[in-house]
């Protein structure tokens, strides 16, 4: 699999629910289809929220990792 080139990183660390999703939604409004973004968050709720947001909006959550403190999401925009 080719390595995705991240178009934009969204640093939502330290933000409480629902701001990681809000910041992500704000950022993607100006990005083109097919762009890949990386979101960093510390809100534990963002794990389910990001998946739900992608399902509803049609974007693809292609990778999700965590080191126990920071959650990292990679999303490809529809």
């Amino acid at each position, binding site marked *: 699999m080719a390595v995705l080139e991240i178009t934009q990183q969204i640093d939502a660390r330290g933000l*409480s629910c629902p701001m990681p999703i*809000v910041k992500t939604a704000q950022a993607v409004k100006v990005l083109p289809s097919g762009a890949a973004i990386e979101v960093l968050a510390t809100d534990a709720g963002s794990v389910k929220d990001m998946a739900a947001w992608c399902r509803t909006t049609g974007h693809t959550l292609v990778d999700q990792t965590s080191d126990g403190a920071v959650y990292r999401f990679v999303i490809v925009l529809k």
Partner: protein
Amino acid sequence: MDEPLNLVLFSGTDDKLQAAAVLTAGAAALGKPVNIFLQYWALDAFRADRIASDHGLAPEAGAAGRAAVDALAAAGQAAWAETLRQAKDLGGVDIEACSLSMDLLHLDQADLDPLVDGVEGVTAFYLAAGDGQVVFI
């Protein structure tokens, strides 16, 4: 997701306004339209000269609840007005003051924070609400 979420805000304490702001921001992030109708003490909290003030908490919060809310704010949680500004930035969020409550509180729209888009009656609110859920907070 086309039907709007319709929030009637009655209570003017910071905890209930925060909960409403979170519901609004989440819906806006999903592209769901949100109509907010401000009545009574919630409307009073949107006065331009008071929106950043401490509006207290619901009685059930008690001292422990107060401490928990303060701790979350100290950890960087955005104030409800800021959360609403971010939600409005996403689009689809309309905040209207109830005209009866405007009379009750002797307010003009110039007295309100710019977050408030206008003044309307309950019939206009229901028209905008369509078949979407109406939630009273």
